[in-house]
C-alpha cells in the first residue's frame, strides 16, 4: 500500500490532478481572505458589469457582477467552498455506508448478500436525479440536506462496485487460510480483505467527489440546493441564464468552475486507479 502511494505520486496524471484539486481546495479554504466582496452584497447601481477584459468593466469587480449587482469572483470563490464541503462530506458518508454493506455482503454471501443485493436493486431503480429531487422535497433546502440527500442516493455506487471486488478477493485462498489460522471474521475482513479493496475504495471516493459536485450544482440549479443565503455555482448558472445575451460571462464562468473541479476529481480517480490497482499496473492499462 505504501509502495503504491509512492507509485501514485510519481504519476504525472495524479500530480496534475492533485494540483487542480489543491487549487480548488485553496479557494474553498481561503475564500474569506481571497474574496474582494461579501458574496451576498448587492450593488444595484452596477448590475451585470462585464469582467475586466471586456469594455465597460468596473475595476472594483474583476469578473463583473450579476443581475443583483453581486461580485461574480467572490461568489465563485464561496461557491468553491460549498462545492468542496459537499464533495468531501457527502462522498465520505456514501463511502462509509456503501463499503460497510459491500464488505458484509461480499464476505458472508448467502442470504445476507441476497438481501443487500435486493436493497441495492430497489434503490437503483430510482433514477438518481429523481430520487435526489424527491429527497430534497422531503428534507427541505440547506447545505446539510444536500449532503444527506447525496449520501442517501449514492451509497449504492460504492456498494455495487465494491461488493464484486470483495467477492473476487474473498475467493482467494489466503482469506480461507486466515480463517483456518484462527482469525475471526472481523479480523479476516479488516486485515485480509480490506487492504485488498482499499485501492478501489480510494479510487471510487475520488470519482464520487466529482459526482457530488455535479449533483450539488444540479440541485442548486433547480433551486432545491443549499438555499439562497449561500453562494453556489448551480445557482449562479440559473441566475445567469436569464441574462445570457447581456452577460454571457456570468454563465460561462461557473460552468468552467464546475468543469474544472469535476475534471480534477475524475483525473485523480483515473490516475489512482492506474497506479494503486496492482492488477491494472501489471497488465499495463
Amino acid at each position: 500500500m505504501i509502495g503504491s502511494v509512492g507509485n501514485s505520486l510519481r504519476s504525472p496524471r495524479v500530480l496534475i490532478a492533485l494540483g487542480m484539486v489543491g487549487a480548488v481546495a485553496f479557494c474553498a479554504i481561503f475564500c474569506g481572505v481571497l474574496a474582494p466582496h461579501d458574496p451576498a452584497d448587492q450593488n444595484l447601481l452596477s448590475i451585470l458589469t462585464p469582467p475586466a477584459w471586456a469594455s465597460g468593466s468596473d475595476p472594483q469587480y474583476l469578473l463583473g457582477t450579476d443581475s443583483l449587482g453581486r461580485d461574480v469572483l467572490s461568489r465563485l470563490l464561496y461557491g468553491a467552498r460549498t462545492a468542496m464541503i459537499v464533495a468531501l462530506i457527502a462522498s465520505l458518508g456514501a463511502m462509509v455506508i456503501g463499503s460497510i454493506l459491500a464488505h458484509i455482503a461480499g464476505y458472508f454471501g448467502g442470504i445476507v448478500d441476497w438481501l443487500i443485493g435486493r436493497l441495492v436493486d430497489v434503490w437503483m431503480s430510482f433514477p438518481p436525479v429523481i430520487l435526489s429531487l424527491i429527497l430534497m422535497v422531503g428534507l427541505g433546502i440547506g447545505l446539510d440536506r444536500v449532503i444527506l440527500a447525496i449520501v442517501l442516493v449514492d451509497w449504492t455506487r460504492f456498494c455495487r462496485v465494491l461488493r464484486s471486488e470483495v467477492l473476487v478477493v474473498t475467493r482467494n485462498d489466503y482469506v480461507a487460510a486466515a480463517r483456518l489460522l484462527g482469525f475471526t471474521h472481523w479480523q479476516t475482513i479488516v486485515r485480509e480483505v480490506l487492504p485488498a479493496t482499499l485501492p478501489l475504495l480510494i479510487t471510487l471516493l475520488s470519482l464520487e467527489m466529482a459526482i457530488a459536485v455535479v449533483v450539488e450544482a444540479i440541485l442548486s440549479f433547480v433551486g432545491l440546493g443549499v438555499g439562497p443565503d449561500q453562494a453556489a455555482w448551480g445557482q449562479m448558472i440559473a441566475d445567469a441564464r436569464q441574462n445570457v445575451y447581456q452577460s454571457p460571462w456570468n454563465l460561462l464562468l461557473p460552468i468552467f468552475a464546475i468543469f474544472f473541479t469535476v475534471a480534477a476529481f475524475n483525473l485523480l480517480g483515473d490516475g489512482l486507479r492506474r497506479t494503486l490497482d496492482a492488477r491494472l499496473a501489471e497488465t499495463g492499462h
Partner: protein
Amino acid sequence: MLATVAKLIARRLLAAIPILLIVSALLFCVLRLLPVDPAAMSLPPTATIVQIEAKRQEMGLDKPLAQQYLIWLHDALHGDFGRSIVFGREAGSLVASTLPATIELAAAAMIIAAGLGLGGGLLLFSLRDTWFESVADLGSILLLSIPEFLWGLILLFVFGVVLNALPFTGEVSPNLPQPHITGFILIDALLIGRLDVFWSACQHLILPAFALGLAFSPAIMRVLRSSLFDVYHEDYIQQARLRGLSERQILLRHALKNAALPTLTLAGVQFGILFSGTLLVELIYSYPGMGNLMIDAVRNADLPLIQAIGLTYCIVVLSINTIVDSLYLVLNPKLRVR
C-alpha cells in the same frame, strides 16, 4: 432458442414486479412523511379547519399508513393516480401527455450516445500503443467531466445564442400547428403529413438530444475500450491469430461480440441514468416533457403528481434494465443454456 429467450424475459419481468411494489411503497411512505398536508393543499386557502378535516377523511388520510398505501395501490392499478393539486387534472393523464416527448428525447439521445460510444471506443482502442493513446485517454476523461446539464447550457450558448443556428426552446416553432395524436411529435407530424412540422421538430430535438448523448457517450467509450483490452488477453484471440485470421477479422468476428457483454451491462445502467437526465435538459430547453412537469410538481409540493411521475421514472428505468438484461442473455450463451 426463441422460446428460451421468451421464458427468460418473462422471468425477468416477474422479478421486476416485487421491486416495483417495494419502490412504490417506499415512494408513498417518503412523500407521506413530508410536513405537507395534502388535504389542506388541495383546498383553497380560505377553507376552514372543519372543511380540511372532512377532506382528510375523504382522502383517507386518517387511516394507518399501510392502509392508505393499499387504497392508493388499488386506485393506481385502476389507472387512478389522484388529482394534481397545482393543475387540478388527473395526475395520470398529465403524465401520459408528457411522457411521449420525454421518451422521444431519451431515445434520440440513447442513439447518439451509443453511436458516439461505439465509435469513440473503437477509436480509443485502435490508438493503443501509440503516442496518441494518452492524449485520447485524457480527452475522454475531460469529456466525462461535462455532465448533461453543462452540455445543455454550452450547446445552447454556442449554437443557440452565439451562432443562432438552432432553436432552443420548446418542441416545434410556436407558429406551427402542434398535433396531438400519439404524443410523439415526430410521428404526429408525419401522421398529419406536415413535413415542415417534422423538420422543425427535428431541429428542436438536436440540441437537447446531443446534450444528453454527449454526456453519456464517454462512459460507454471507456468501458468498450477496456473490455476490448481484456478480450485481447484471452487465449482464443491468440488462437485466432495462429489460425491466420487478420486483425480486422479478429476484431469484428471474435473480439467485439465478447467485449459487447460488459459494455452492454454498463450501457444499461447509463441509459437508466440518461432517462432521468432528460429532466435537466428539458428544463434548460423548455421541452414539454415529464421533466418540466416534475419540476413544477416539486416546486409546488404537488404530492400526487410527484408520486405519479416518480413511479413512471422507476417503471421506465426498470423496463430498460429488463430489456438490457434480456439482451445480455441473448448475447451470452453461457447464461442462456442451463
